């Protein structure tokens, strides 16, 4: 029995909530996997900060065109109906609330929706990219994350201790153990793996998990 979802499985679960025709921005890295798991019959339009709407899969190795990349600097292809535009128009889409959903990674998410995902502290070279814009732009900001850090510390917390990316911006968190909504400054548990009890889940969560109605089983295919 599954006791922890893989990154691909978390991405799969998030993909089920994306409507056909939705405009979606996927954060660099693990959230990019969401594009692979769109349910049959649905096609989202993917936005990348560097000025492309409607991009498709990565090209085969050796067929990359390095003028056609995504925000992670990976080569992409175009779907029919794609468009190019400059960076100010790209972030007008973001900041102006035109994206339906942005899906990002997280270091910490607080029960009021605060997100920390850009800096682990003052050491090293700071880098923010488009994260701070995305969290206040999309109509819905969702986070994909392991439920706990590599050291076993909760990533869903009462309040973030790491530098914030945005305040009160996250509305849903897809973790390796559960699907949690953020409503009225509370975590509200919507789904959890059948193999884990509510008490066990609460024990690895840094803030109170509220229950509002039924908790569904989080069921994801092997991937």
């Amino acid at each position: 029995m599954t006791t922890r979802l893989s990154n691909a499985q978390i991405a799969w679960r998030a993909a089920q909530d994306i409507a056909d025709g939705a405009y979606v921005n996927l954060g660099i890295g693990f959230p990019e996997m969401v594009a692979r798991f769109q349910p049959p019959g649905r096609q989202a339009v993917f936005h990348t900060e560097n000025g492309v709407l409607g991009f498709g899969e990565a090209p085969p190795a050796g067929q990359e065109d390095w003028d056609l990349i995504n925000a992670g600097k990976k080569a992409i292809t175009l779907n029919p109906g794609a468009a190019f535009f400059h960076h100010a128009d790209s972030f007008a889409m973001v900041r102006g609330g035109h994206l339906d959903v942005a899906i990002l990674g997280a270091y910490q998410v607080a029960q009021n929706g605060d997100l920390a995902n850009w800096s682990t502290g003052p050491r090293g070279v700071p880098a923010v990219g488009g994260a701070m814009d995305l969290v206040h732009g999309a109509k819905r900001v969702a986070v994909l994350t392991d439920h706990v850090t590599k050291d076993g510390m909760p990533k869903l917390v009462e309040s973030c201790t790491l530098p914030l990316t945005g305040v009160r911006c996250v509305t849903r968190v897809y973790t390796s153990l559960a699907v949690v909504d953020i409503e009225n400054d509370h975590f509200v548990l919507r789904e959890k793996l059948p193999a884990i009890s509510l008490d066990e889940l609460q024990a690895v969560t840094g803030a109170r998990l509220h229950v509002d109605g039924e908790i569904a089983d989080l069921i994801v295919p092997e991937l």
Partner: protein
Amino acid sequence: MDKRIPSLAEAVADIPDGATVMIGGFGGSGAPIELIHALIDRCLATGSPRDLTVINNNSGNGHVGIAALIEQGMVRKMVCSFPRSADPRVFTEKYLAGEIGLELVPQGTLAERIRAGGAGIPAFYTLTAYGTDLAQGKPVAEFEGRQYVQERWLKADVALIKAELGDHHGNLTYRMAARNFSPLMAMAAARTIVQVTQVVAPGCIDPEHVVTPGIFVDGVVEVANPAQEEALNRANAVYPEVQA
């Protein structure tokens, strides 16, 4: 995804009383005459929508398009930079009679306020209008030794615009100077409805040539031979046509 709308009547069906409506065009160039007339038809048939706030550079010319909309009593207030035209009688008479409101905005500020609405910028500063009557009551701030006026974003419930090609995703191209305010209004309205000369399949518009990406567009309706306001006015057209 398919944003096509089969008829003009359906395209304007959901605009409620009291809506703020951005209408593309500069004078007659880019004016979505057929969408405007469809809105008039709906009002004649159903009594709605009325009490509209209309945002456009001008305030209508002759007795077609925006002038006809005003003439039907559907417009409560105009937001524009230049409420004059070759034949501005319809607006002028209602304005002087106190039957229609006017917010006068410098043209560049109007354009930038609409872009700001679309880009999530609630306020910005400009030299334009500093020290003039049109800056009265607006906050002023100094940057690098000069005084600037704070201007606020402008948004709308609906934008009615005219474009040349539109694909099923809502990607648009325009025709010459008919582009003007339309790409900005498409960004700034909660719902953007476009009349296009030709609907094409996704992929038919070169991604390099898209002017308005489909993310800003909600509905596309084909009007294959759109009327030119200027030509209508030269023919002394009136909408709706008086029945003989």
